[in-house]
């Protein structure tokens, strides 16, 4: 099992039900952990399967008001501006939104690299590549904890640090999104297979699981990965 320690001043693992006025889960979700790992190292030949998330610092919440914009950035609109002039005035598109975020967080993510069918190289190659990258602090992009604003720092874990002493039910937590190819789907996404990357159309539905913090460690049930093709 591979380990990575991540820490940050803030984190917001947004609950889907409180997505507009954000409220965070108490603990990092498996999909956020996968995002962090993928930022450090990922190849189409394997997928990350998160096994455990250890919480090293007490859970502290923090209330935050931020100025955000209402609309999404659209490539097509930006192209029109480039052609005809104009631009985006954030001041005219403001919304002040509340977020209940976590403060001063530190986690150890334990995960496995699981090679895909089309992988030709041995697993050891990938695990060693990951270890080297983690030690050097290399990443494809700087990982973040839930929101892009909350940049995360990472490194190999320190064996002297132990999880907090807290056991409680966290309720149903987002596990990940389940992508299903479907000709009439709502979504266009990149799928990776033997022939390389290609665009696929399909649907994504969120999957949940009963999360429980056991002496400061969130165990991700293995059966979840049996049913999900990432």
């Amino acid at each position, binding site marked *: 099992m591979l380990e990575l320690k991540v820490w940050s001043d803030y984190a917001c693992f947004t609950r*889907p*039900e409180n*997505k*507009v006025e954000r409220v965070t889960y108490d603990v990092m979700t498996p999909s956020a952990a996968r995002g962090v790992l993928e930022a450090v190292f990922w190849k189409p030949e394997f997928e990350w399967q998160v096994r455990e998330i250890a919480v090293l610092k007490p859970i502290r919440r923090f209330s935050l008001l931020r100025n955000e914009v*209402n609309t999404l950035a659209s490539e097509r609109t930006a192209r029109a501006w480039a052609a005809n002039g104009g631009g985006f005035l954030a001041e005219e598109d403001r919304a002040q*939104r509340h977020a209940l975020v976590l403060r001063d967080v530190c986690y150890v993510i334990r995960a496995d690299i699981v090679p895909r069918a089309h992988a030709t190289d041995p697993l050891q190659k990938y695990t060693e590549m990951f270890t080297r990258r983690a030690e050097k602090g290399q990443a494809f992009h700087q990982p973040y904890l839930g929101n892009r604003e909350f940049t995360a720092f990472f490194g190999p874990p320190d064996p002297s640090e132990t999880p907090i002493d807290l056991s409680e039910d966290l309720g*149903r937590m987002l596990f990940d999104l389940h992508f299903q190819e479907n000709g009439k789907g*709502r979504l266009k996404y990149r799928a990776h297979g033997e022939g390389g990357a290609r665009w696929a159309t399909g*649907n994504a539905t969120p999957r949940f699981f009963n999360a429980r913090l056991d002496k400061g460690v969130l165990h991700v049930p293995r059966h979840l990965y049996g049913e999900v093709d990432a």
Partner: protein
Amino acid sequence: MSLLHQLREYELRMRREGKKPVSEGEQAGGDEMPFMYALQPVRWRVTLRGDGTVLDVQPLSSGKTKGKDLGKPTPAPNLVRTVGIKPRLLTDNAEYVLGFAKKEGDPKVGQRHDAFKALVQACAEATGEPSVQAVARFLGGHDPASFKEKYLAAFSDFTPDTNVTFSVEGVEPLTLPAVQRFWAAQFGQGDNENGATALIAECLITGEVGPVMEREPVKIKGILGGQTSGMNFISANAQAFESYGLQASQIAPVKFEAAEQYANGLNRLLADPNTSLKVGGVTYAFWTGEGAVPLVSRTLQEPPAELTHRFAIQKKREKKARPEEVRQTLWGIFQGEQPTLKPGAAFHAVGLTPSGSRIAVRTHLTSTVQEAVDNLSDYFTAQSLVIANPKYDRESYDIRTLVSGMYRDINKEHTAPDVDALVQFALSGRPLPESFLARLAARNRADEYRVTRPRAVLTKMVLLSRDRKELDMDKDSLDALNPGQPEPAYHLGRLLAVLDDIQGSVMRANTTLVDRFYGSMSITPYAVVGRLIHGSQAHLQKLRKENEPAYRAKQRELEDVMSRLADIPAKPLTTAQQSLFALGYYHQRAEINAGIRERAEAKKARAEAEKNVPQPEPLLTEGAVQ
């Protein structure tokens, strides 16, 4: 645990316990409400014969004499309707039921009436109930103009925006179980209003896989500052909130029934003043996993008198309130009114603020009833502080009074974060923010009343709630004057009070020492102490000539304070030190006032005693002394 899950559990428990549901801000009567039914005022009842012909139209009254009579509150099918055409089953406004236009020439009236007709027809076919079939037959041959002429001529107050229902040969179709099942089946069956298939996903509350709601069926009402028509918990109206192609409420897939339950659970809590608290822009709801809900909201709004007595008794015996006794008193108060209170039960609290038509969750706490009451008693114990002015000051304060100590005019401020911090401190013991100290210190400097009791109380609460390592203070005795405090800032505060007292005893100044020097003394004492001490010498001198015993007493007081000030900090005081300065000033003032009161009382007692004793003849020598 997720908030929605907890709310749903509460609603299900209340239904199991046979508690009446809440709808439209009114308490419903009788049994449990059928799924997607709510109490709605119904003004007119069309009575039909079995063959669908009209017998008559009867007005139903709410009994209210003031304003417009909307009709008798009746359990009837309910749904959230915005701009789209969505009929309610068998009971709706006259536009849907009879095809009367609210606005003349509205082209949509016909569509609305047709939708209503189609729904009744579908219901008649599905249920096979003769009464529904009779209504369907009536609607089949209904002509609005002749109906109006024939049956509504007698009712001049008929308006198309009032609700109309049906009764067939004494049968109310809405009360039939088959009809209620049909109405319930309209929801969560997979089709939405546009005819598209609903999303099949895993419900984030129940975990069941099935069709999920596209829009919330019940709106949340009673959020302070929010929309009165109700607000949404889960919703996404703009692209920025959508992701993975999931729209509206599908961003968080929830089964329709579960959505109705959590919304009704929250509405139930918000409608009851015992389980909700609205203060400073935040709306709170409190509930428990089992048993009664402790009267947290009432206690925070108006600290009970019993607690005040408790503080007073303790004051006389020793100068410190004991949390254990306050706790027992609180338990006694709560359990006196709610015998089913269970100490081990889960206690939940949520703080909500409005944001447009949506709800923002500010706080979500989960603990046990025991912990909540323990924290609440600590909150009140932290408020115990010597009283400087018994005529005006109270023993303990409500949240609004405490927060208003930080502002010139609380009505002009955005106080939600402060209120929230105080409530979280009261219920979970979470430390109060440092920013409180800065604001309190600023108000103390600016306001002519200086350190008022609410301000002193709040200052003390912040200092107690945080572990201030850089501040050398004795945390256990901030209740009253403590000459043993190690921190010089505290004694500087005392010094200012003593010097002011000395000035006050020899002259009545329009602008007192405190008015002039509180600000500079509380920030840069080094710059002013020398000048103040020097100035006070003249006052002391005058006092010595006029009233020597008073002079001695004041001199002793001054020496006592000065002896604690080995050196005066050369640097400006930090915000924390300024807070302790304010407390020192307040404690000393209270002490001086207590002395004055004591002397006044003694004088009064002496005068009383002297009145009763016959006056001896004046001696001639007494006059010669002067």
